[in-house]
């Protein structure tokens, strides 16, 4: 049983970077002493977005494309405790208009994933994480900015059931994301329909939740998922204004994830599509990754 679980871990880190970045959202663990390193490329595009509740097109943006490459090691500290890290480089581009694309190293994230309960096919997991901006990118030149620069702390509860014989599984989780205030270059801005005479901006805390149904086998995995994310506070993009970090960004998405990893080397892919949202682009995203597992333990 050693191999499949170990090998799978790296691939499951995969998520759309555009929305909530690379957070661990699975019930799978690396064995003690194993490290799975994933190298990934992701691309997300939209040509329509929601300005508050209003869905619209913007001829001065055209299609906005966000791309990223990232390194994501997953480290087996013990059979029940894994440490996961990620560091993406992100760049943006608009197909129309004259807004200059932005690029840079985004946020360094780390999570500890703990299997708290295992009973037959059932398992419960606690995932604690945090992130820090890893470079001094501009957070309020949206939608071109590569991130919001908030420090984050994340708490997630994840429950999973896997049928032992078939490998069919059902996983669900809910997450609370705490986000710090940020500093912007300007020293006044409008949010919540008032003027703030400061460079400090409150970025809303968010939640997310997901349900996933899939099959997990020794050498491959396939899964469909639905996700919901949103702010616990936050305002809307004003009519014909640009987005701002105080916006309540909500999205409901669906997608597919798959992975093949016969031995130490594997590949994975993920596709996501935003069905409905508020203050976000209706993005279609995909990610592909190359996985490599190293066993330090003999």
């Amino acid at each position: 049983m050693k191999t499949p679980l170990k090998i799978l871990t790296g691939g499951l880190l995969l998520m759309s970077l555009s929305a909530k970045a690379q957070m661990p959202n699975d019930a799978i663990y690396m064995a003690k002493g194993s490290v799975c390193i994933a190298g990934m490329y992701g691309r997300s595009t939209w040509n329509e977005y929601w300005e508050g509740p209003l869905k619209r097109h913007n001829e001065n943006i055209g299609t906005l494309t966000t791309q990223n490459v990232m390194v994501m090691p997953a480290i087996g500290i013990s059979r029940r405790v894994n440490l996961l890290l990620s560091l993406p480089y992100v760049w943006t581009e608009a197909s129309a208009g004259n807004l200059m694309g932005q690029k840079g190293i985004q946020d360094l994230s780390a999570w500890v994933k703990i299997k708290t309960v295992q009973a037959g096919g059932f398992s419960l997991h606690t995932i604690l994480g945090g992130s820090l901006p890893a470079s001094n990118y501009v957070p309020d030149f949206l939608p071109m900015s590569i991130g919001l620069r908030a420090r984050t702390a994340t708490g997630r509860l994840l429950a999973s059931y896997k049928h032992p014989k078939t490998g069919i599984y059902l996983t669900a989780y809910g997450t609370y994301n705490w986000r710090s205030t940020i500093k912007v270059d300007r020293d006044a801005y409008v949010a919540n329909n008032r003027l703030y005479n400061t460079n400090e901006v409150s970025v809303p805390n968010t939640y997310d939740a997901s349900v996933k149904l899939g099959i997990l086998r020794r050498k491959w995995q396939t899964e469909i998922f639905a996700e919901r994310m949103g702010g616990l506070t936050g305002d809307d993009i004003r009519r014909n204004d640009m987005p701002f970090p105080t916006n309540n960004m909500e999205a409901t998405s669906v997608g597919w994830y798959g992975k093949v990893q016969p031995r130490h080397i594997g590949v994975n892919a993920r596709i996501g599509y935003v069905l409905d949202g508020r203050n976000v682009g209706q993005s279609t995203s995909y990610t592909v990754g190359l996985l490599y597992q190293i066993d330090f333990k003999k």
Partner: protein
Amino acid sequence: MKKYSKIVSLCSVMAAVAVATVSCDKSITEPLRVGYTPASVDEKAASWKTYVLTAPTDVTVAAPTLTTSSEYQAELADLKSQSSSLTTEQQQAVVYWGAGAVYRWNEIARELAARYNIPPASNAEGKYPVPDMNNPLADPKFPFANPPYTARALAYLSVAQYDALVAAWNYKYKYKRVAPGKVDASVKVALPASALPSYPSEDAVVAAASYVVLKAMFPGEVPFLDAKLAEHQNSRLWAGMNVKSDLAAGADLGNQVAAKVMGRARSDGMGMANNQGATAAMIESVKSRGLSDVWLSQESPKRPPMLPTYGSVITWNFDEATKIKLRPAAPPALNSTEFTKDLEELRSIQKDQTREQARIANYWADGAGSYTPPGHWSRMAANAANDAKYSEVRMARTLALVNTALMDAGICCWDTKYYYYYPRPQQFGVKTSVGLPNFPSYTSGHSTFSAAAATVLGSVFPERADEFWAQAQDASNSRIYGLIHYRFDCVVGLQCGKNIGSYAVARGKADGSGL
């Protein structure tokens, strides 16, 4: 195995750092401004030169009742009951308005400007509907408080406040009614008191004058302004600073002055500032002077240029002939070496914009959704005057000098922009990191506004002149770093702004204040 434990410890440290650096404080700290006793009450301000009034006696204020009268005593008793114990909300209102009537109403004006400074969206037919002042809350909202609009709103606000305060000073020292706290020591006074006579109330004067101007400039905000006006007036009762007749006389005076000031506003040419029909002749004219590629809107669908005839609006500190003299010489030809050099500079910044360049560009961007460059400089002026503990009338004078210079700068710059109709760098493939305004390039509005304001501020606060000029220089450079102006747009704009500002400086030197 060694390798592995190293990785683990490194990762653990990183995770710990991530969690540890997160503090739970989500509150936003805004700079605090509190009341003060003015460094001088400027008791001779009644003789200072006004903008629209010919003399303080253009407006009338009835003589107050004596403080020994039964009417006054009844007002005093009412004041005592209103100010004896305050709710938290009332205390907050007292502290907020106590920072200064002129200061707060300018801040309110900037807030309105920022909330209304969004260009209309195009409709299904690919047209941009023009905001309708008779239906201000429809889409698009009226006004689109762009830099020329905001400069004008701030100028009229400050002129109304200043003229009204000069008139108020006249009547204050004519009638010399002392503050309620000095009539009766048992009045609970919540704010620093000066020797200034209290009838008519300077706060009520400023509130009423500001209300009238802002209601005209932002007609969709009447409920918001009503609430501010009522709170301001009430705060003077809660603070034990004015009896009701002080406030009523002040409101009456403020209304009279504002009506006269708005009379000028209605005939200053702003109603004709968006004459899109004039652009064809402008383009023809500049082409006949040899410009091959004229400015074109870079938006899709093409947006009509912002206020093409704002350059014909009446200026404050000089006349029409002077305005034409202030217009700079023509920009470099599009095939000249100077043009090529400055375009190349932008291309190289686009390739390797430093974070410091981006910071300066963002700090001064003051683009859509902001209170615009005039708002930015007006804020700096208000803060400087507040730091210097200026009296209300001197604060108003400072802002009137700065804000009229800013409006003059806007008018001159718009005149120049549409006279030369010069193409933006974006017409040669340059992107922007701050957003592109929809009007011709030459000269830079930021540079013109900033130099004009910095010149005036440098005259009012000579010890800070270098600091203000360095900021104007930064604001000017910010448009190069943000990639929307050639260096020659900025250099020439800065010089023009300095010349424009010097007229407001000259006015200030000759306004009888001796300041």
